[in-house]
């Protein structure tokens, strides 16, 4: 287990490092709250042992900071203290500590408590739950296949790139990257509220139908927003809500549902927006063939500044190879899944095995719609 130890007393950190290493843990230590927060930006530490009394930022403050951050997975906090008494315990628990160990600590006790923390962390299956939920919502719309798997990979690549840019380093850290990986699959969850006749319609939507289809972004954000209202501290819910709401906004303000422009569109929405369009373009849909990476790239470049945030497009272009690789990786898997799906349904609906024939004119309209605006 990777453990972060925070204490401004290097004698204590040395003893802790040694004891924890002997029990097989990988330990990193920080000498101040600030340094600890900096290290935690990587998103790699899920268990923190911190000292209550530190110069500068106290353990209590550090605890609060950790709890307030965008965090994709739970961080288990053990406080090290010489304080005793209910009052101190209550103060520590209020700040978000999970457990206490009194100084001087017994190595055995420390390790048992760490094991208790590991048990709690292993129960934190939030990530899996979220993805299953997203898959469930997507299950009516079978043709999209591994869409969610790809989307989150693309988002991770873009966010990872941004985290290395100075402009975004304050906003995008390792934790943000993991958070968008986890929440981006929920972007279309509002489609559960769209009737079958529209969601599954294998040809272009009428204006009225498209208006209804557009509601999926607000249905999704309202649903997730209701959860945020109950758990305002759950940052992953906030991000999921923002993504569901804003992934169809466009950089020039011509998108929906709010017609937001530029940086008024949440960053996560701008990232998912590009990933979603790229995926729609490069995979087969009932209304269009799969475009090559090059063609999709040209369309995205063409729409830079109008549809897409130039910074996000740059992140995409600089990581093109990774996009291609992700797509190829899932393509093979998808072909297999689609075939077995068609076979299983063919028993009941033989028509499914025949390719729908479109008139040339109609296909052009649909392809244009997909490329330009109506990727849904």
């Amino acid at each position, binding site marked *: 287990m990777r453990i972060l130890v925070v204490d*401004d*007393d*290097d*004698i*204590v950190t*040395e*003893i802790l490092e*040694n*004891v924890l290493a*002997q029990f097989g843990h990988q330990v990193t230590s920080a000498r101040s709250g600030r340094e600890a927060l900096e290290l935690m930006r990587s998103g790699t530490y899920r268990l923190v042992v911190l*000292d209550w*009394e530190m*110069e500068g930022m106290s353990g209590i403050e550090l605890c609060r900071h950790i709890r307030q951050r965008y965090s994709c997975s739970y961080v288990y906090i053990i406080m090290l203290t*010489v304080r005793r008494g209910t009052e101190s315990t209550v103060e520590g628990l209020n700040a978000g500590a999970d457990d206490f160990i009194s*100084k*001087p*600590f017994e*190595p055995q006790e420390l390790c048992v408590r760490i094991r208790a923390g590991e048990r709690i962390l292993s129960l934190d299956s939030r990530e899996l739950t979220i993805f299953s939920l997203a898959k469930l919502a997507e299950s009516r719309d079978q043709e999209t296949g591994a869409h969610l798997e790809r989307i989150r990979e693309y988002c991770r690549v873009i966010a990872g790139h941004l985290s290395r840019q100075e402009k975004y380093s304050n906003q995008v850290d390792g934790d943000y990257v993991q958070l968008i990986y986890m929440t981006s699959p929920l972007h279309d969850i509002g489609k559960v509220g769209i009737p079958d006749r529209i969601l599954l319609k294998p040809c272009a939507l009428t204006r009225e139908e498209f208006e209804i289809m557009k509601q999926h972004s607000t249905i999704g954000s309202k649903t997730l927003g209701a959860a945020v209202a109950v758990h305002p501290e759950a940052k992953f819910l906030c991000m999921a809500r923002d993504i569901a709401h804003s992934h169809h906004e466009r950089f020039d303000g011509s998108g929906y549902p709010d017609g937001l422009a530029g940086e008024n569109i949440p960053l996560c929405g701008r990232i998912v927006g590009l990933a979603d369009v790229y995926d729609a373009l490069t995979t087969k849909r009932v209304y269009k063939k799969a475009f090559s990476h090059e063609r999709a790239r040209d369309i995205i470049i063409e729409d830079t500044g109008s549809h897409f945030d130039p910074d996000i497009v740059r992140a995409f272009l600089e990581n093109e190879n990774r996009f291609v690789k992700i797509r190829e990786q899932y393509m093979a898997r998808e072909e297999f899944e689609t075939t077995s799906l068609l076979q299983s349904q063919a028993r009941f609906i033989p028509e499914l095995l025949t390719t729908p024939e479109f008139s040339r004119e109609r296909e052009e309209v649909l392809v244009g719609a997909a490329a330009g605006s109506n990727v849904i």
Partner: protein
Amino acid sequence: MGNLNLVHRVLSKFQKRLPEELAEMNKALERGDMGRIAHIAHRVKGTSASVSAKGLALAAAEIEDLSRAGRATDIPARIEHFRDEWEKCLDEAVVLLSGGDIV
């Protein structure tokens, strides 16, 4: 802990650190900065306890309590007591560090 190297490193650090802490405590006392004394004493208490220097931890705790209670006049005597404890500790540490009776 079964790690003589660690004991050695930690005790050397401790040995070097304490005089600094003591000097800083005296300076704070001259300024009448009770908060600072309490802070240092608290830290020393924690460190001492961590290296099993119980007498020292106790002496530090007394200083911490007095400074928190604002009893400045009682503190010099307790700092003296702390210094005595420190001397005792030092003797023991020298024995340990020389590789004497440990194991």
